[in-house]
């Protein structure tokens, strides 16, 4: 089959909506447009039933005991805000200390920074060179004032999967609420709030082949019963935790997307990991000084993050971007002009953070696409190295670190 361009390999930024999800959503824009809080007529009943069904579909995907434990939000960012700020406000009397990691996504880090300005203390624990959080480091960071441990399930850049069950167990022992940002893990690998001792879980629809604009926060109701203060006040929807008219078509889509992920996960994981491993082999066996970022095994099946020494990430993307959509930890591709703090947290040099490329695969990628991207990546990196002064110096045997660079 002829390849269709551009090829999308940026599926940890977003995913295309599965056509089956679109089909499920469509009736809820037109004939089934009711408000789920309208208790007195069939339009409302129909909408409420659809929302309940979606809630149940999502509850099954994360192993929640009760669908009522799920609160719909506008997406992952809102869920993370609601979880962390909601706990901070609700349990302020109990303590003012939060434990999190340096590799959380921006929402998690920025919420914690805001809370610090409001008098909270936050321990940002480092990660090991493979991106894993050492559970003992979490244990040591906990104080008698700690009210929340917040650790992401799997990282958005390097795909490293944390030992969530061990952290959940630790949180239980200490009687501390445990939140995990599962935006990247949901629907890709097994997530079980009961087995893993998760009290709060943030997730989003658009990374699991559902629509953008909807997410959810799991809030444990039993053992322990977790309470959170709302961010948005109003009609008391979602058990008072998130007021606002529910976007029924989006929620229906999210539910259907979750259902499909549950059905296909085992097979999809295997297939995507196979394609990913092939891409990794092609690149690492043909390029010298290319380094895998993150843990080689404890990693999302669709994630591959490689630093190509001596070439800058954005220039690699530029060589491919007409035909392939990828992302880079290079400063030039971020709005902050700082290179990836995740790659930097692994202890890699800043140069390698600038040189990192993330390949993230999705449900609709084919083996032909992956072969093509692999070959093109080799070509582009080779060409850029031929024009890299650093590669030239390295080939001459000069230690680049020995040069007195004048940083701007």
């Amino acid at each position: 089959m002829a390849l269709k361009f551009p090829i999308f390999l940026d599926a940890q930024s977003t995913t295309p909506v599965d056509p089956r999800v679109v089909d499920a959503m469509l009736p809820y824009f037109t004939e089934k447009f009711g408000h789920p809080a309208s208790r007195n007529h069939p339009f409302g009943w129909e909408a409420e039933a659809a929302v309940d069904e979606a809630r149940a579909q999502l509850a099954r995907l994360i192993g929640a005991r009760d669908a009522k434990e799920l609160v719909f939000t506008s997406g992952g960012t809102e869920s993370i805000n609601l979880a962390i700020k909601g706990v901070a406000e609700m349990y302020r009397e109990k303590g003012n200390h939060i434990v999190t990691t340096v590799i959380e996504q921006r929402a998690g880090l920025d919420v914690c920074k805001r809370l610090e300005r409001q008098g909270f203390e936050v321990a940002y624990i480092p990660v090991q060179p493979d991106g894993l959080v050492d559970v003992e480091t979490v244990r040591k960071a906990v104080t008698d004032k700690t009210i929340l441990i917040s650790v992401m399930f799997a990282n958005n850049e390097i795909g490293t999967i944390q030992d969530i069950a061990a952290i959940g167990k630790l949180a239980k022992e200490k009687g501390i609420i445990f939140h995990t940002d599962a935006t990247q893990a949901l629907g890709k690998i097994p997530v079980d709030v009961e087995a893993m001792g998760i009290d709060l879980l943030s997730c989003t629809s658009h990374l699991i082949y559902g629509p953008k604009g909807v997410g959810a926060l799991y809030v444990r109701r039993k053992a322990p019963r977790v309470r959170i203060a709302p961010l948005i006040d109003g009609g008391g929807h979602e058990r008072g935790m998130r007021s606002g008219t529910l976007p029924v078509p989006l929620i229906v889509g999210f539910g259907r997307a979750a259902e499909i992920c549950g059905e296909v996960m085992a097979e999809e994981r295997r297939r995507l990991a196979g394609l990913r491993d092939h891409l990794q082999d092609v690149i690492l066996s043909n390029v010298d000084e290319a380094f895998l970022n993150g843990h080689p095994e404890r990693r999302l099946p669709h994630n591959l993050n490689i630093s190509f020494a001596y070439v800058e990430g954005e220039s690699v993307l530029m060589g491919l971007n007409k035909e392939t959509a990828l992302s880079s930890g290079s400063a030039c591709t971020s709005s902050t002009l700082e290179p990836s703090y995740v790659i930097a947290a692994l202890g890699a040099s800043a140069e390698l953070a600038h040189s990192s490329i993330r390949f993230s695969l999705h449900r609709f990628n084919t083996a032909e696409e992956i072969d093509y991207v692999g070959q093109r990546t080799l070509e582009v990196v080779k060409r850029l190295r031929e024009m890299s002064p650093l590669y030239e110096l390295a080939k001459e045997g000069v230690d680049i670190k020995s040069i007195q660079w004048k940083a701007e």
Partner: protein
Amino acid sequence: MAYSEKVVDHYNNPRNVGSFAKDTPGIGTGLVGAPECGDVMKLQIKVNLETGLIEDAKFKTFGCGSAIASSSLATEWLKGKTVDEAAKIKNTDIVNELKLPPVKIHCSVLAEDAIKAALTDYREKWASARAAADSK
């Protein structure tokens, strides 16, 4: 971010990529930037010690597409100029020619720094040889 046509052209068809042997008479080398900042440029000029004109220029750049384009453009502009004329190339000229957006202005600044460093290196090494040739 969308790139200007000229940036794309220089990225796809960089002019004058390569290196001269540093100690060849008339060669001036500038190496600027820092790997941890994501930009390093090496720019070299080859001055004809008889005429004082820059006969050739070459570059190698580690950096984004705009950094590659800025240094590629600089080598084009350097050729045929005297050393004094070359010193007048400003980063703003590069910004205007390549239509660089504000976040990429540092790429043009680095290219100007690279030109200046190459000219300084040339003067330190070969200005006396050039003066001798001139007085003949």
